[in-house]
């Protein structure tokens, strides 16, 4: 026996085609060759997956071994002599291609994959131009309907990439090989119809045409022009290609080598593109005349807008005008909007729905921690020692981040802990613990984790060892002293063992990454919870990453879409800050004191007379939608910009058509604070214009500078907004650029407030309702994608099986969901995710707007459910 050498350690010296080389222990021969630019052909290999070894193409020769060795699955070993090219290897590869091609239908003329097909490429490369082998029993098998996808067994080469990506990266583990031998095929693990996340990862990695999209591709691959852009559906900021034929987007395709997402997309990104060509667009500016919306010219529309704003301001003061801006606006849109309102009109009351839901939170974030403590690069995922998802529905919210986490778990074995009011542990690999807490007790749980980490009997972390991370470790530990973790377990409803397991791992492994989701962001006690989690992160040498709901939620705040902050988090009431911008903008607006009540309260009580809604639909999506509608109806003048008609736009005096992302360029800033470029791919629809252009036009009418391009706006941002220096379109075009946020790192001790948030009495409204996003829909664009609507067609409510049994409810029942504010119709799904007494309702169905169930001043929404 040869002396064995330990793998995954040290450096291994070997030869590659006669050249002496070195590589770290654990590297495969293929990886070592590739990193040196030595070509070894592959077919089933995919860098982001574990080695598969099914195609047998990557063979190499190793001295002393009588036969080919698969380079993808063999680690480099000391003194190994590897040869990557030889006649016998070429012959073997040709034979492997012949095997693969046996009975492969010569469907290239009609196959979707033609031109992008690994089989075509490798056959050509190895000159597999004649077939020595054949088998009997070749029968064409039907194509299988997998909802948003299709599977053709005739074309399948059983490389298993789809199986692996679904398991290792997507975590769903939906597919596997069914059968043995030549008759085997890919099938769902359940053997029922495919019912998964429909992320389409399997589609994107299939090297042949076996898996195709149900949206039949109407273009040949060589007819396609690719435009790289950023997905507009959530805060992750995935890169993808819009594939165009003759000016129409026919497909979204991914590319492992661009952006932050390593080629991964979610169902919204991949299948939500049909909205770009939807017919339901607002095509021209409209003016409300009586009860009808009549088309008018841009000039007419904008003159009226300018006049009305001036008039209102004159009569009632600058606080009588307000702007509600969408978090889907690009940085340029947002910047221009607030610049024109502030510098042009002297109007400061600008806000976003997210900030309004939790104004306290953002104040905390900006002032106490700088934006920085919550803004973390995705690179940290690969470095983290452990993962904690807190109040996150990680598989459905910002889903591609979950993919990154799964790959880190696969490669490093990092443990995962999930704390949420719904069991969201359908992760694969499974979390070490699932802490399903009672809604309202989050702050208590977070504080008890801090106590548990430093408690000598539980986590055992010595606070002195982290003195350089936490400002006042002694104070922090002392603040948590009063907490009894066993009591916390009882009150929060979480198993003590799970808390102990989490705290022990965090103390031992350190450097956790704590993800914080929408459930916490929208929570009435969110500031408390976020501070506790930030403290927990600092204490254990880790970081927090807050999920941003929309693609530019971060940028919206960065660009000052807030009544209290100017761009770059400079305060609106700070004369120095105001002076900085007045200098840049050549304007003369004053420092702004607090504008008073929030936009809807202001409309209700008559403080706000004129409202501009830029790109969003608060009546459908803002909590307490009925109140919002009444408040808006109270306005004297309403201007709405948007791409699609909405509940809000039907009330508008002036409606302005705006562009979707495919029609214009611009930048978004994602969860990480990375500014990324979207590119124009298709022509503008009708007379639509992007918001920056609309507001620049308004600004020009007030004598402000005019702008010829979006890029020009970006240049100005790079020049004047703190943190955005150098982030011009050119500089962010390849991989984006990180914003430099003011850093404030250390945690501080404070009084932990562990009193649970009031969740109301059972009484006549027995269920607590969690109203959040589902996976398939996020906003109006997704509702205009037929494929997404097929996958999730209508409003539903998710109920715990115990509750279902008590109420004699069955799966699929049509029910009336009623709160004291309103009611909706939905169909019932029974799942053991939320605790007993808690239901989940997605907010995204405009025909059953769950936002209408909410009463704005209550910390939670309670509902009753009856059969319809």
């Amino acid at each position: 026996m040869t002396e064995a050498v330990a793998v995954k350690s040290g450096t291994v010296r070997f030869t590659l085609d006669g050249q002496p080389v070195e590589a770290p222990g654990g590297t495969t021969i293929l990886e070592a060759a590739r990193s040196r630019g030595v070509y070894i052909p592959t077919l089933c290999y995919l860098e982001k997956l574990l080695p598969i070894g099914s195609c047998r193409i990557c063979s190499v020769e190793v001295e002393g071994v009588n036969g080919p060795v698969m380079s993808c699955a063999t680690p480099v070993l000391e003194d190994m002599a590897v040869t990557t090219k030889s006649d016998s290897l070429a012959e073997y590869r040709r034979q492997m291609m012949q095997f693969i091609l046996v009975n492969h239908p010569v469907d290239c003329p009609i196959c979707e994959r033609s031109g992008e097909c690994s089989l075509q490429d490798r056959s050509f490369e190895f000159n597999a131009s004649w077939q020595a082998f054949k088998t009997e029993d070749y029968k064409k098998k039907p194509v299988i309907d997998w909802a948003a996808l299709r599977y053709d067994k005739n074309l399948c080469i059983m490389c298993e990439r789809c199986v692996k990506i679904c398991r290792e990266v997507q975590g769903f583990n939906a597919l596997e090989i069914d059968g043995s031998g030549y008759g085997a095929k890919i099938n769902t693990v359940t053997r029922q119809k495919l019912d998964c996340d429909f992320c389409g990862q399997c589609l994107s990695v299939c090297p042949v045409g076996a898996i195709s999209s149900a949206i039949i591709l109407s273009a040949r691959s060589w007819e396609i022009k690719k435009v790289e852009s950023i997905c507009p559906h959530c805060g992750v900021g995935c890169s993808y290609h819009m594939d165009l034929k003759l000016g129409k987007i026919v497909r979204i395709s991914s590319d492992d080598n661009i952006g932050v997402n390593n080629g991964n997309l979610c169902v919204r990104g991949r299948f939500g593109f049909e909205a770009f060509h939807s017919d339901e667009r607002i095509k021209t500016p409209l003016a409300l005349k009586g009860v009808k919306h009549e088309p008018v010219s841009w000039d007419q529309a904008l003159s009226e807008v300018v006049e009305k704003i001036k008039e209102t301001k004159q009569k009632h003061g600058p606080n009588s005008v307000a702007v509600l801006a969408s978090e889907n606006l690009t940085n340029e849109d947002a910047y221009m909007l607030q610049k024109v309102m502030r510098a042009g009109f002297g109007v400061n009351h600008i806000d976003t729905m997210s900030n309004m839901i939790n104004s306290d939170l953002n104040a905390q974030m900006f002032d106490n921690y700088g934006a920085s403590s919550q803004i973390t690069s995705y690179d940290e995922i690969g470095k983290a020692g452990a993962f904690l998802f807190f109040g996150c529905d990680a598989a459905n919210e910002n889903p591609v981040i979950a993919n990154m986490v799964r790959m880190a778990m696969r490669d490093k074995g990092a443990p995962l802990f999930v704390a949420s009011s719904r069991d969201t542990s359908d992760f694969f690999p499974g979390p070490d613990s699932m802490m399903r807490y009672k809604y309202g007790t989050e702050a208590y749980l977070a504080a008890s984790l801090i106590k548990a980490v430093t408690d000598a009997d539980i986590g055992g972390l010595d606070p002195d060892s982290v003195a350089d991370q936490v400002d006042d470790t002694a104070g922090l530990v002392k603040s948590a002293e009063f907490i009894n973790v066993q009591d916390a377990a009882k009150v929060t409803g979480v198993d003590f063992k799970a808390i102990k397991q989490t705290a022990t791992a965090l103390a031992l492994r350190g450097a956790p990454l704590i993800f914080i989701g929408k459930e916490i962001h929208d929570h009435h006690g969110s500031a408390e919870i976020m501070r506790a989690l930030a403290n927990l992160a600092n204490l254990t040498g880790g970081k927090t990453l807050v999920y941003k709901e929309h693609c530019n939620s971060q940028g919206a705040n960065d660009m000052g879409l807030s009544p209290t902050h100017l761009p770059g988090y400079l305060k609106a009431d700070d004369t120095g800050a105001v002076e900085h911008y007045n200098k840049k903008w050549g304007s003369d607006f004053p420092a702004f004191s607090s504008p008073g009540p929030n936009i809807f309260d202001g409309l209700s009580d008559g403080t706000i007379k004129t409202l501009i809604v830029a790109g969003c639909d608060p009546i459908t999506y803002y909590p307490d939608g009925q109140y919002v509608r009444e408040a808006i109806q109270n306005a004297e003048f309403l201007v709405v910009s948007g791409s699609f008609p909405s509940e809000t736009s039907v009330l508008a005096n002036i409606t302005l058509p705006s562009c979707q992302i495919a029609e214009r360029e611009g930048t978004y800033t994602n969860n990480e604070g990375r500014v990324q470029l979207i590119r124009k791919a298709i022509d503008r629809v009708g007379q639509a214009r992007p918001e920056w252009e609309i507001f620049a036009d308004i600004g020009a009418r007030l004598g402000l500078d005019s702008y010829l391009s979006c890029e020009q706006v970006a240049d100005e941002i790079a020049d004047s907004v703190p943190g955005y220096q150098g982030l011009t379109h050119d500089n962010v075009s390849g991989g984006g650029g990180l914003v430099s946020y003011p850093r404030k790192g250390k945690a501080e001790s404070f009084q932990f407030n562990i009193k649970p948030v009031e969740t109301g009495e059972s009484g006549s409204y027995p269920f607590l309702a969690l109203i959040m996003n589902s996976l398939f829909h996020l906003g109006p664009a997704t509702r205009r994608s037929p494929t997404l609507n097929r996958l999730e067609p209508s409003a539903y409510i998710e109920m715990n099986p115990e509750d279902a049994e008590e109420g004699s409810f069955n799966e699929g029942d049509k029910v009336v969901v009623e709160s004291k504010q309103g009611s909706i119709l939905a169909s019932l799904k029974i799942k053991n995710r939320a605790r007993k007494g808690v239901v989940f309702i997605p907010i995204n169905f405009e025909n059953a707007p769950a936002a209408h169930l909410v009463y704005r001043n209550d910390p939670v929404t309670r509902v009753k459910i009856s059969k319809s």
Partner: protein
Amino acid sequence: MKLLFSSWLHNLVDNREKSGDSWSDCPSVTLPETFDKERRMTAFMGWGGVVIVSEPYDIVEMAYEYAKSLQASSCAKCFPCRVGTKVIEDLLHVIVEGRGSDDDLDRLATLCHSISKNSKCGIGQLGPKPITDTLLHFKDDYRRYLSGGEKRPGFYYPYKMTAPCTSACPTGMDIPLYIEHVKEENFGASLATIREASVMANMLGRACFHPCENNCRRANVETSLSICKIKRFAWDYEDQHAVGQPVNLNKHTREEKVAVIGGGIAGMVCAYNLALKGYRVTVFEKLPYSGGAARTGIPQYRVPNEVMDKEARYVKEMGVEIKYNVHFGKDETFKSLREKGFKAFFLATGADLSKPMRVEGENDGYDGFYNGIEILHQVKQNLNPVPKRKKTLVIGGGNTAMDCCRTFARLGSDVKIVYRRTEKELPADPHEYKDSLDEGVEYMFLEAPSKIIAENGKIVGLLSQKMKLGEPDESGRRRPKPIEGSEHVIDADCIISAIGQDCDIFYLDEDKQIQVTKWQTPVADEDTMRTDAPDVFAGGDCMTGPATLVDASGQGKRGAQSIDQFIRGEKIRISDTQWMEKIIRKIGAYDKDEVIPVPKGWSRQPMPICDRDKKLGSFEEVELGYTQEQVMDEAGRCMRCYIVGMACVINKGDDKQ
């Protein structure tokens, strides 16, 4: 063995031209006389080549059937095997139908070579060898088919897909599959695969003596796979993560009740398998806890109590009722349970009596004398505190002796093993022996006890006689002979007898149908586990005498199979596939001299061990278990040595299973 032809492994023996008396011997091949003690087996084809026992046979038909079996066994995960074996099958089909040509033979040879060089696992790598052998040595037989004159005789060709490790495993566990699942990060599937063979995944993962590892082809490259500890990881993963457990969809779908006597591994495996088939099983266990010898005999630092509790909970979830503190033979009998409607019995009462040393003083109740079995139980379950002993002697050299000496080392005593043969003959697991040396245990070889010396009822020493080794006894080990006049006293205040175990089968007196062997075990068929009473089956230590956990597990599963056949009125027999398993075991699936074309140097992952100080001071588990990174790396070394063995059987059986 005298054979007509053999190309098995490296030895070619061709007696086809010779008359029966002048056949040369083939010493490297051993096959049983018949297929299943009834039908004739005239040929065997497998990874090592072709073996023809005698006429009649048809090599071309067999080659075709063998190719079919390869294709049916192919996992479809690599092109050469998945497609290649189909092409071979079709080519041979054409040939065996009389429509073949010489070109086809050449193509066949090329295919076999290509497939064997490029395949991902043993099916493709080793499968083509016998077909190549037929092309080399049986050209005339092929020619007869090519000319169109020959007709297929239609013999019967049962086959079994296995692997050297699987073949060595008494439960027939699909080891390469569960290792592959771990390699592919599919831990739940790995555990499900393990449980198909034996539900006691955790117990085996911590304490199995892993005969598989001694049959692992990777040892021919560097060292064997750490198969046992990979299994432990799969179980630990489910235990330590918030993932669901499988459910029994067949729970209580049948009305019949079955009684399993004894809640050790044999009984629990039998109960679990019957529950999966829908039966209502009750396990009657005399102790307050299940687990049998694993629970009472294996110390906490190897198999913690909590482990057994969790296994028991899982088995209960499947629909098995466990009644504790019920002593069969006293509290319940065959008669009482038959009256309560139990249709069948599985006896799994183990071997929990300490074998007497027949040494003066062992029965005098001296303070400081312990039976190995009892003292391990006492310590493991904290039954009574054990006073601290200064010098302990453990008589015996098997795993029980290991458990005793390491336990007492942890209890703070100086421990010596007294064994009558030498280190070479020590029956204990080599790594147990090594660990015991690490823990400070000393060994006195070639010593045997003559008399226990006590003062005032307390042990003060052992009178021991030196031995030398003479001729081998019936177990094959050299018999120790006392050296005259060599008796001497070894100081000690504690003596533990751990020389062997006996079975307590007093309850068999009730049913006179059941015969008993001279070793005090019920007579039972080694394959079907049936005794002479039609509704009584037996397995585990109580049937074989003290053996291993994994043997007991395999018997438990076969017991369930037989009980199921019995209750449904079917013939009680093992299937033809199971007969093939036995034949493959006989011919031997592992060749330690095989040269395997794989690069060398990928070493086995070391098992993390707890701190040495911690080791001796406490009963905390010594082995910490692999990390996920380690286990996935270790799993990558597995070469998936799947092989297919096929027999040619004359006279079709009544049911082809």
